[in-house]
């Protein structure tokens, strides 16, 4: 028989440190598959965030830089302006992108930097133990919203794709998810599209990925996937938010 699926070449042999059922692992694998299939291994420069995604340089066998918390879009800007022919991809979580790094993300998008942000939205600060994130939905219990997120006290969940869509510099913004097979396939397609946008120099591209965090949501992995489907994707509608001609 023929091997039809095996480990992508751009993944190092290291075992993932992510918790069981974590969406980061699936996103990491999809990125590696896209790097392989689009033959980007010698062209891509990845920027790792602070947060659960920060160890991607232990997994991707490509050039990687670890940025300070929230500064991914700024360092990616610096790299891309010096090396416009490389593919520069910043991997960021919700706290990184939409709280501490809002200014950097917003203005890189507004300048229309030819970079791609892969935004893993799991609605909590995972690595620090499940505190409220800017994308925590209302009534969601976290360690810093023990009675659930109350808008009067803690604000509302931020829809970053929609926020950035109003900026003229953005060229491709899509929200996808990794909680079921069809969604995972769609996520991979979105990654390919985002990279194509960057290669065609159309401007800022971002793929927002709704991602289960069973550990901090205090659910088992399958419940977490169901929660993405039933609850999270109602707050963050899955689908294309903006695309200019590629």
């Amino acid at each position, binding site marked *: 028989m023929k091997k039809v699926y095996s480990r992508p070449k751009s993944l190092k042999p290291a075992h993932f440190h992510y918790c069981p059922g974590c969406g980061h692992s699936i996103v990491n694998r999809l990125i590696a598959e896209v790097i392989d299939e689009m033959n980007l*291994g*010698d*062209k*891509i*420069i990845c*920027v*790792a965030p*602070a947060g659960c995604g*920060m*160890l991607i*340089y232990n997994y*991707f*066998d*490509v*050039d*990687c*830089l*670890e*940025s*300070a918390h929230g*500064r991914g879009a*700024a*360092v*990616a*800007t*610096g*790299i*891309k*302006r*010096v*090396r416009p022919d*490389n*593919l520069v991809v910043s991997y960021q979580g919700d706290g990184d992108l939409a709280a501490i790094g809002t*200014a*950097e993300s*917003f*203005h890189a998008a507004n*300048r229309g930097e030819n970079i791609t942000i892969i935004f893993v939205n799991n609605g909590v600060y995972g690595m620090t133990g499940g505190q409220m994130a800017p994308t925590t939905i209302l009534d969601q219990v976290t360690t810093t919203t023990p009675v659930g997120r109350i808008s009067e006290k803690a604000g509302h969940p931020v829809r970053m794709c929609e926020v950035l869509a109003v900026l003229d510099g953005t060229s491709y913004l899509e929200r996808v998810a990794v909680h079921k097979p069809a969604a995972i396939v769609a996520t991979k397609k979105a990654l390919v599209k985002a990279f194509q946008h960057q290669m065609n120099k159309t401007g800022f591209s971002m793929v927002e990925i709704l991602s289960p965090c069973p550990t901090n949501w205090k659910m088992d992995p399958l419940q977490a996937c169901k929660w993405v489907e039933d609850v999270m994707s109602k707050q963050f509608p899955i689908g294309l938010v903006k695309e200019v001609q590629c």
Partner: protein
Amino acid sequence: MKKLMSGNAAAGEAAVLAGCTCYFGYPITPQNELTEYMAKRVPEAGGVFIQSESEIAAINMVLGASVAGARAMTSSSGPGISLKQEGISYLAADELPAVILNMVRGGPGMGNISPAQSDYLQATRGGGHGDYRTIVLAPSSVQEIADLMPLAFDLAEKYRNPVVVLGDGMLGQMMEPVEFDHIKKPEPVAKDYILTGAKGRPSRMVRSLIFDVKEQEEHNWKLARKFQRIEQNEVRYETHLVDDAELVVIAYGTAARIAKGAIARLRQEGLKVGMIRPITLWPFPTKIIQETSKTIHDFFVFEMSAGQLVEDVKLSLEGKGRVHFYGRPGGVIPTPVELFRIISRHCYQIQRVKKS
């Protein structure tokens, strides 16, 4: 050929001539002339200029450009430098070269926009979190700004460490004739640590997160050994009329320039006063101060801050010699006459003590 230029513009011109291809900055007085100069000059030279959304973004763009292999710089003043400290710490941890110019103003907090030297400790102690140092160069004229900018880039690349050029509002905004002919474009060097895409070589990673404490300790010691090498090799200072002096002024930058004026008057009065002017504030010229203390016992520290440089002088002397201190913080610009009066009083006091 000499050109009449402000210190800010001269810093920019010297940087471009020294191969700086990336400038990222955010407006703040008193260094805006540099950002404005670079907005025109860097793109002309084929480089990258971005007016960033914040100081934090600017220093992180510098980090990105540096990791991509370019000579990159940013500039600011006190409050903006505080914001940049996060990125400076990461640059030091990642061992990436960068040049940061600080045209210091009065502080703390918002302070004012008048020249000061109040960021001395911030600059010489690293300023950000963690165990690291930055090389600190302190020019005292517009020409010296032009001379030190290329050195700043060379040292940053040689040691793979951020270098701070510490001026002040006066140096940034005053205009003086300045010569650039001696600045040569650097030969391109192969950098084996930069990220270019893993073409024809194994992939690289640049990071500062080291969970393993042993590994982190080793990284810290590695940095410490590098800082020791810098202390051994890169101390720079100027001595002025020290040989026959009975009192030695220690001052840097604008303060040293004011002191020089005062010393000329003191000498006219027959008072034997000399000066040691640190050009590198870190590494600090400890040895020359120690050696001087074998024959001269009185040191007069003059700074436009409330007692920062004086700490390093005392540390250098290790209890030997008498340290007199005169500071004018808050953006006050002292005059040579004022300093002449203060120093002459000390000189007469020293003479009285000697006689008795």
